């Protein structure tokens, strides 16, 4: 229990002092995760809408696989990305291993299935509701997709937040492809793992509390910007 209290106190002082080391890794955490979230949404949202409106042969299979991939083990993703980006791998020449870019790539792979699955759930329901109307209005495939994405935007926000939550707390993959290098690829989660390993429980806990606070803060601000949970809105 003492460790918890020390951790809380230390977290408080780290934040109040605006500790430069803390600010650096917290900023990198946000930078990596938000970038990954951005690219993942760019891939997952249209994919989800496409799966909702388009009937093709292996549609069910694709959806089932996507759902299964929600539970993709991050360590394995990290390992595979590592193999691809390592010197001997197919993308070795790009020199991306142990950079924030590599971490973003790994996180995109981890959260795309999650975002796409959750987004698909709500888009499917909306499509069911809109189907007859849009068919009678003779809309094109592209118009269907854009209409659904726009009208389901608040549900999609939830999907994005789920992706954010998974990415910001993720440690296995980014540890492998990022390498937890100080001033280069160290983020909150990998720092926590390191400090715990060193036996610095209080400091590790302090970082943990800051990570949780950060996640809550981002969620709240997105909700505030998106005006969710207000009367008459969706």
């Amino acid at each position, binding site marked *: 229990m003492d460790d918890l209290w020390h951790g809380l106190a230390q977290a408080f002082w780290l934040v109040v002092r605006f500790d430069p080391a803390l600010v650096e890794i917290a900023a990198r955490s946000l930078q990596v995760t938000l970038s990954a979230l951005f690219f993942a949404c760019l891939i997952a949202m249209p994919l989800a809408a496409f799966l909702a409106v388009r009937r093709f042969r292996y549609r069910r299979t694709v959806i089932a696989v996507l759902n299964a991939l929600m539970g993709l083990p991050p360590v394995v993703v990290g390992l595979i990305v590592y193999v691809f980006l390592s010197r001997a791998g197919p993308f070795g020449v790009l020199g991306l291993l142990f950079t924030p870019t590599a971490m973003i790539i790994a996180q995109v792979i981890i959260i795309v299935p999650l975002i796409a699955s959750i987004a698909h759930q709500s888009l499917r329901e*909306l499509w069911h*509701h*809109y189907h*007859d*109307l849009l*068919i*009678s*209005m*003779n*809309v094109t495939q592209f*118009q269907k997709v854009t*209409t659904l994405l726009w*009208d*389901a935007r608040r549900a999609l926000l939830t999907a994005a937040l789920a992706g954010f939550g998974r990415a910001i707390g993720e440690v296995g993959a980014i540890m492998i492809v990022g390498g937890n290098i100080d001033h280069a690829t160290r983020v909150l989660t990998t720092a926590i793992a390191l400090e715990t390993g060193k036996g610095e429980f209080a400091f590790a806990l302090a970082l943990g509390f800051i990570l949780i606070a950060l996640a809550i803060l981002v969620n709240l601000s997105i909700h505030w910007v998106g005006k969710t949970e207000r009367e*008459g*809105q*969706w």
Partner: protein
Amino acid sequence: MVNTLFPLTVTGATARRSGRDLIGPIDLHLSGAPCTMVIGPNGSGKTTLLRLLSGAARLGAGQINWASDADYLRAAQAFVFQRPVMLRRTVLQNLCYPLQLRGVSRVQARRRAEEWAAKVGLTDLLDRPAPALSGGEQQKLALARALITNPKVLFLDEPCAALDGRAMREVEAILQAAKTAGTRLIMSTHDMGQARRLADEVLFLLHGKLHEHTPAAEFFAAPQTPQAAAFLNGDIVE
């Protein structure tokens, strides 16, 4: 106004779902009466017939031939459902939506949307989210949204089934105005009073078969088939 969609000829049309015939075979010739009313008991295939004619349901066998080609038909028709489908947007955006699909400019779309909102009495509600409207208001919005593109033919599937008397009167006034403006109505209804008020010709369906196709005045005065007579009498037709 010349309506180039009619005459419509239907020969041996059937609609199937999972191997079962929902309706048909149906033979029909519509020369374009201002309002064609489809009546019949529940499950007689009214909705399916409307969906077949509009192209929303797949044709199992037979042919449906409009006087114009399929592309023109798709652009010149609109459909109003029993339960209005509201886009999760404001009333104004719902009205603008079909115009935007057709590439009408934002300013122009807004102007026409405001015109139509005034026609159906929704001007005060333009900025309200459409799903928050009452049932009657939603159906009026659905009608305005369907008519805003000046369709040549408007399909209506029991548009007043869930409405009270006042809302029904308002909807019928809008439909009368659309008729006068040259839009052909093909609609189904359960309400024989409404059928009498609006219909110019009647299609009587029973068990997925077309039993009667007669001018409205004749149909209501002296139906040709005993089933239709029984239905008009309020007997339960099985």
